[in-house]
């Protein structure tokens, strides 16, 4: 089970790095979602997996009986999911507003905060210079 989840985390990270290397901000954001899910799964696995033994207190008892799943990582993941969701919602709106105002999703074309100076090769020139 751990191996399976470790592989899944690996695949998620691979895909997210691939997406985040794109110039398009939307692809970057999707990569970020995958990465944060990979981090959440890592917390989950780090708490050790104990399948089929939920952390529940039987009726009439004060503590759970026997070996039960570690509830702390689940609480952490829940917190992380909520925070990650909020931040991602903000980032999406920001990118949408950015697209509205700047008219592009291409990070190379976003030069309002750092305008191209006269003595600097333009983004276009740079692209022509490299043969891909």
């Amino acid at each position: 089970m751990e191996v399976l989840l470790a592989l899944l985390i690996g695949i998620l990270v691979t895909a997210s790095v691939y997406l985040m290397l794109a110039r398009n901000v939307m692809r970057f954001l999707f990569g970020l979602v995958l990465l944060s899910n990979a981090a959440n799964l890592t917390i989950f696995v780090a708490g050790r997996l104990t399948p089929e033994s939920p952390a529940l207190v039987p009726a009439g008892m004060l503590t759970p009986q026997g070996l039960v799943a570690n509830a702390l990582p689940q609480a952490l993941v829940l917190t992380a999911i909520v925070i990650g969701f909020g931040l991602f919602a903000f980032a999406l709106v920001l990118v949408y507003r950015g697209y509205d105002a700047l008219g592009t999703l291409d990070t190379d074309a976003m030069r309002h905060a750092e305008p191209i100076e006269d003595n600097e090769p333009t983004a276009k020139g740079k692209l022509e210079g490299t043969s891909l």
Partner: protein
Amino acid sequence: MSWLLALPVILPFATAVLVFLLRSRGAAGRWLSVAGCGLLLVVSILLMAATWREGVIAAQMGGWPAPFGITLVADLLSAVMVLITAITGLAVAVYALADIDERRETLGYHALFQILLAGVCGAFLTGDIFNLYVWFEVMLIASFGLLVLGGDKAQLDGGIKYVTLNLVSTVMFLTGIALLYGLTGTLNMADLHGAVREVENQGLLTVVAVVFMIAFGVKAAVFPLFFWLPASYHTPPVAVSAVFAGLLTKVGVYALIRTFTLIFTEDTAYTHNLLLVVAALTMVTGVLGAAAQNEFRKILSFHIVSQIGYMILGLALYTPLALVGAVFYLVHHIIVKANLFLVSGVAKRLTGSFELSAIGGLYKSSPFLAVLFLIPAFSLAGFPPLSGFWAKFLLVKASLEVEAYLIAAVALVVGLLTIFSMTKIWAEAFWKPHPEGKEPVLSALDARARMALMAPILALATLTIIIGFYPEPFVIFAERSAAQLLDPALYVRAVLGAAT
């Protein structure tokens, strides 16, 4: 006692709620924000006094004993960081009276500003690494809001880069926490101090240490992770970028100092040497980046990066004197850097631009402002007898003590190059006549705006001078603080001992 630890977080949150309700009432909200910061200052002075008396104080929130509950803990470093946060907060809140336009006020500038202060104080006071993550998020979301508030094109552009890169660092931080928890089974930082020594695979622990280093490195803006900073810090209003410049990166530095003195101290040959290389490169790239800029706030932004290098240097050398230097540097730098941003705002008001080529004449027509620029600028560069001189002196002396001559040389040369940048601002903005023949006099501002803008600058400059001329109490303080960092036994006992 536990109230004293919780109040620096509760107060700004309470103020935030109130000023949010009053956001369209103009003056009421503004002054409430100032009052909130004043109260925060009072509380942080009390907290400082308590930690000075008792060493380390800790409180368990919700009555759950450590290491299970959420611990708030203040040693001298935490206390001084909270104090300096309150000072910067108050200065910027007063400055914001005249700097923030009505539109941004209605959108909730003051509320976000208070939430940012709460997040920063929370990060300084928490004793739990997952809680530290939560406070980082509180701080981040507030800073996101502040950065793009108003929605100028440049702000959105800078904001996208700031938000995306900081989110990546957040995820790294979270992954680091997961791995550390997997290795040790605890999240309480005092408990981690002991638990990491029992980890069988110490190599794995070093890997986790580097994950944390990268996560905090992005926040602290060290080489090669600083690119979000000069891309965004010059875009929002000055009352936003001054508080960012003063506090945000320093939370990253604080987190680095905390984790790399309390938790990751087993393999210092690797981790702290890596930090030393990072420190040198950060100093050099920052100062060279600044030399290439021609915009007031962009120069200052690159200097933040360069100065962060000095603080990391103090941590990386990991000797008592070096940590004294790091703590002293941290305190001095926050005051000076926030002040320089505030001065840049006044210069822009008077001359009409941040571009150095388009402004000038400030020395002739407003010599008062010129003097108030020179004090933090020379302090930043390390002129005796200003505060920056002592900070650099301590660090260079610490490097020479361990015979790290190369890093000492780098620190000195970077100081020299800092003077070059400051002279550039001086020559362009202050000395040369205004290209359009404007006479930028301070009296052009109306009396109230002048008071609100100049009072914080004057206060912070006075602090810089006081630290410069009477460094002894500050050095003694930094020495005690560094001793606590190097010997965490007291910290651990305060947190875990309080439970029994």
